[in-house]
């Protein structure tokens, strides 16, 4: 997922801490094997039964920290969502929005969209995760499935630049309409504009020396 060198943000200058040679890499959580435990086996079984294309649609199933994440291919996202909502034994009536995550080091899968789902009927929660390459950031919109995703998808477009195809009006929602760039991407600096204070220049927080 990502790799960090040294302990501090300093490079080029003398890092006397002795941690300069430290390399830490953070890997993605791997896929899980059955049995998944809790109600997760049942959810997976039911979805497999209701959705014949399950095996080609779901890239991997991850059980981590007591939560089920289905990694879905973007072409199949809409169908999977429909099945999850409409199948009697699944009934995920509520989608709690979209959370974008930017992994610049995850090549061809840079942008992720995470959908937490809730079934009020069965009192269950699962999560869908989709990834798209930065060069082709298109995802099908789920507004038709869950109308409440409207603003969430606009926010994810605004902050990460993921384009939701089929959205009824994909415009910026939090930033001004003419804002350049997508602020919550990792390549977008925090602050960006150096702050001047009594002649001294304070670098943006993302440029400061700090722990990694």
């Amino acid at each position, binding site marked *: 997922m990502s790799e960090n060198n040294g302990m501090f943000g300093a490079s080029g200058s003398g890092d006397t801490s002795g941690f300069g040679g430290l390399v830490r890499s*953070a890997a993605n959580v791997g896929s899980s094997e059955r049995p998944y435990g809790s109600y997760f086996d049942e959810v997976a079984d039911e979805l497999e039964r209701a959705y014949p294309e399950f095996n080609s649609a779901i890239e991997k199933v991850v059980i981590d*920290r007591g939560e089920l994440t289905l990694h879905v291919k973007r072409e199949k996202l809409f169908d999977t969502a429909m099945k999850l909502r409409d199948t009697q034994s699944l009934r995920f009536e509520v989608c709690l929005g979209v959370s974008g995550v930017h992994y610049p080091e995850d090549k061809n899968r840079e942008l992720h969209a995470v959908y937490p789902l809730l079934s009020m009927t069965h009192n269950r929660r699962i999560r869908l995760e989709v990834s798209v390459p930065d060069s082709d950031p298109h995802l099908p919109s789920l507004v038709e499935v869950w*109308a*409440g995703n409207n603003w969430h998808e606009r926010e994810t477009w605004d902050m990460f630049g993921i384009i939701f195809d089929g959205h009824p009006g994909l415009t910026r929602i939090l930033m001004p309409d003419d804002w350049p760039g997508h602020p919550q991407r990792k390549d977008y600096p925090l602050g960006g504009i150096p702050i001047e204070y009594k002649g001294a220049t304070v670098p943006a*927080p993302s440029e400061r020396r*700090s722990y990694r």
Partner: protein
Amino acid sequence: MTTHDSYASATETTEGRVYSVTGGDWDSLVTEIGQTKEERVVVNMGPQHPSTHGVLRLVLELEGETITEARAGIGYLHTGIEKNAEYRTWTQGVTFVTRMDYLAPIFNETAYCLSLEKLLGITNDIPERASQIRVLMMELNRISSHMVALGTGALELGALSPMIFAFREREKVLDVFEMISGLRMNMAYVRPGGVAQDLPKGAVAKIRETVKELRHNFKDNEKLLVGNTIWMKRTQGIGYLDLAGCTTLGITGPVLRSTGMPWDLRKTEPYCGYEDYEFDVITTDTCDVYGRFLIRMQELEQSLRIIEQACDKLEKSEGQPVMVADKKIAWPSQLSVGSDGMGNSLDHIREIMGTSMESLIHHFKLVTEGFRVPTGQAYAAVESPRGETGVHLVSDGGTRPYRVHFREPSFNNLQATSAMAEGGMIADVIGAVASIDPVMGGVDR
């Protein structure tokens, strides 16, 4: 008649004639609009408007007084907290997120900490007393938040007195917050692993007294509004949204419960030990503004019940730890409330500065660098006064969050404005928005 009015001037645009109103003489404006042949008027309400519940902009398309289209414009209070949090330690994140929904700071903090504790895998290690204090603080906060919802909601519909009573009660709750955390708002009191400090001496007694006062004083507002003919005429059958509308829009909280759906995360997915408290989930089946108002009114009493039970539990757990035992996560010192707010306890300063070099190193490492959180993601949700506050956290194994995302109920629920307002009268859009109770700090984050 086209007399020039500096407050209400008109300009021609490609979209039609645009009138700018910044106060002053409405008569000349009304006469002028009356003379145009156009039936359809687009009114831009807010973001600076006394009854839009904050910096909310509403674009209303009107035919006469009927709304044909309502759109909400947000983003005027966007602060970039989610981005900022990525450049601070996990613990510092609490201080950021408490400022999102500024009327429900404890809920933001608790949701964030629950999600972080899930990531750390220490959910079951949180001391009981810490959870009891969290429950106590959340329910106190629910009261102070509902008081603002009721007070300003009534104010926006033209009833002034309820606001005075509501804010009087809110002050009492804020006094308790000040006694416990040193701050009245944005306390950053709930911390990863527990809470920042134990309750001060005499806190439980003071809370019990406050509960008694509040229970007595809530009657004032009840007498003013419940069953009040004018209030009922302004709120009944207004802002209608049924269960199907709520589910597809992802609406939670009092708006969902006004459809008769007893959905409350405190009951359905208990956290912080809510399963050990006795309380009722309040519902109405009217799907309207009045129903939501009644729910908030009655939830106050339920919160008082929970607070009383929390006080009983806290009396029994006196002296127990309020922070997780793991010294790699727990903040090295308990803080203390001084005359100028919350700060380091003097005992701790004495220890690290005067007696123990190791304590100083430990303090320095944990406070400046923070703790590492294993790679992965987690989602945790709490029932805030406005619905489900969910926190999605992603860690890359570092000492700072890789991603912090708040699923804010205000943000989500505000989408219902169109569904509630369209087809209704323009005067009713105010009631509809007030019944959603959006807090713009939470909407825009």
